[in-house]
């Protein structure tokens, strides 16, 4: 008698436990999906709202005119667009060649002391707060020179770009089949020739996407520019060039003037305008945000599609 009731009790208990375990299972698995959706809400919210608010600001004048004095409607952010292009261009030039060359080393000798040191410092550099990099560029360039300049901003952004360039290039070089390398070496080509004219072309698509991603990230950075390029609402590339031409200055002199003057950039302008008490400036800030967002979205989507295609091709 006692045994049956005991086994019945046990059965009931097991059954109840089974139901509750299944319930927990279903609940928690649904929860993970719900959390994924939750995390994506801000993404769509931001994108949607920036397009909604910024869309009405964008017109031809916004891209082609200098800012009007505060309080007046109209005017554009040409100075910031020029500034962003100049600073990002400088950063790309300074980061690209060292990044790719260092990646060749990292891909070939991952286990030497230098290789491990390189990977470690790449990791560290990619984790250093961008504002700290800004402080470094200030101490390295602005303080000795005594003035804010586009060059200092370029150096700061270059330091932020290098880790991304090294990492993507290294990854892409590792994807290149070893046969290619061996075939080239077997034909008698030296290592440098193999690297430059066989490995690099094979990995080039991936390298370029990596660089594009790095540029997109750098173009959206504000903190490292706060006290390196500082910002300059009166910056006007056209005036500098035309006055340089009329004064018969050489290209190098003109470039020197451009690179050594304080300069604005899109994110910097956005930050300044967002805190202003003038509604038309705040409205323009949304326009700038839209430009930045489109830039980031376009580069990211293009780059990822490209990488995916490339990987499939290389894996055959």
């Amino acid at each position, binding site marked *: 008698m006692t045994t049956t009731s005991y086994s019945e009790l046990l059965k009931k208990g097991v059954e109840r436990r089974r139901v509750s*375990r*299944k319930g927990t299972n279903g609940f*928690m*698995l649904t929860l*993970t999906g719900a*959390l*994924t959706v939750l*995390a*994506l809400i*801000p*993404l769509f919210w*931001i994108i949607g709202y*920036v397009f909604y608010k910024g869309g009405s600001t964008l017109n031809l004048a916004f891209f082609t005119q200098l800012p009007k004095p505060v309080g007046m409607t109209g005017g554009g952010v040409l100075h910031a667009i020029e500034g962003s292009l100049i600073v990002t261009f400088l950063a790309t030039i300074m980061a690209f060649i*060292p*990044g790719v*060359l*260092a990646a060749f*080393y*990292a891909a070939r000798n991952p286990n030497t002391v230098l*290789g491990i040191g*390189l990977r*470690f*410092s*790449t*990791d*560290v*550099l990619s*984790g*250093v*707060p*961008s*504002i*700290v990099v800004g*402080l*470094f560029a*200030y101490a*390295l360039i602005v303080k000795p020179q005594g003035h804010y300049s586009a060059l200092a901003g370029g150096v700061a952004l270059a*330091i932020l770009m*290098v880790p991304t360039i090294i990492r993507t290039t290294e990854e892409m070089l590792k994807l290149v089949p070893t046969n290619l390398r061996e075939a080239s070496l077997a034909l008698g080509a*030296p*290592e440098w*020739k193999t690297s430059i004219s066989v490995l690099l072309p094979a990995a080039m698509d991936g390298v370029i996407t990596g660089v594009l991603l790095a540029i*997109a990230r750098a173009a*959206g*950075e504000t*903190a490292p520019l*706060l006290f390196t390029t500082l910002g300059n609402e009166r910056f006007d590339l056209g005036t500098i060039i035309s006055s340089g031409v009329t004064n018969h200055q050489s290209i190098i002199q003109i470039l020197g003037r451009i690179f050594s003057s304080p300069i604005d950039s899109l*994110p910097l302008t*956005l*930050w300044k305008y*967002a805190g202003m008490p003038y509604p038309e400036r*705040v409205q323009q*800030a949304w326009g700038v*945000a839209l430009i*930045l*967002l489109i830039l*980031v*979205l376009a580069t*990211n*989507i293009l780059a990822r599609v490209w990488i995916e295609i490339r990987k499939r091709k290389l894996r055959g």
Partner: protein
Amino acid sequence: MMKPTTQKNHWIKKIGQLLNHGDRPWFGLIIIMSVVVIAFMVAIGYMLWIDSGPSRVAFGLSFLQPTTDPSWDPVNSNFQAWPFIYGTLITSIIALVIALPVSLGIAIYLSELCPAWLRTPLNWLIELLAAIPSVVYGLWGIFVFLPQVVTPIGTYLFDIFGNVPGLGSFFAGPIPESGASRLAASLILAIMIIPTISAVTRDVLLAIPNSQREASLALGSTQWETIWKILLPYGASGILGAVILGLGRALGETMAVTMVIGNSIEGTISILKPGYTMASIIANEFAETVSALHTSSLIEIGFSLFVMTLLLNMLARLLVWSVTRKTPQEARA
């Protein structure tokens, strides 16, 4: 006639041999570039250390120590960094507490449950969240997120916890009408570090061999029990690494935080009140410092930030590496 050419060829050959047909300069070049990258990392620490000298000499360790009566007084050149350190720590920790469960959920969904066709697009979307510039987060935060989300949440928290003894000082309110507060900074930070934590956690989960899952399921576990009792403990150190990486990102985040935290130096510890973080005080004051000591104090704050993120990064990489090293990606096939 023959002689000069052969001699020339001889020299070309000699130079070729000496340079190993161009390989020696090539290796020299790539080694130099690698050293340059490493040198930059060292130089960042070195230059900030040198430039923070005056402040280190003037204030010593008391600069960084907790204090109930902090002073940040550019006029009288008396600086203590505690309010900013507190602001950075409290916002980052709250952000972590919020971001961790969400990121775990995402990582579990992406690695264990998600149908294959949905996985790549979802990965992209989550990564896109990390690609949005920080100033855009800030702008959206000021005009949309703060008034619509943070202020109601803050008011609610104040109603519930505001008068609880002990906890009350953390929730002293009311929250400003604009929503600008440490809570706002924490919430924005949480959104911004979710991609980092979930991506690394997903990689850690994907690196766990399938035999673990199969063994657990064969013993009659449900899928959730497999995840909760087998996979998460197995990847625990890697997940800890992911959390630390996220913390590192939160500590150094500047623009979005500066735009929503309210930037006020007050003695209060409440999360519903405006505050300051280490990064945001540098962003706000560095271009307009009033004295050399002021500059140097800000650089010392930057240096502390650098050391914190350096240590966290090292720890995190070590932890992640300790998990992924055990099982190469192929083990999962």
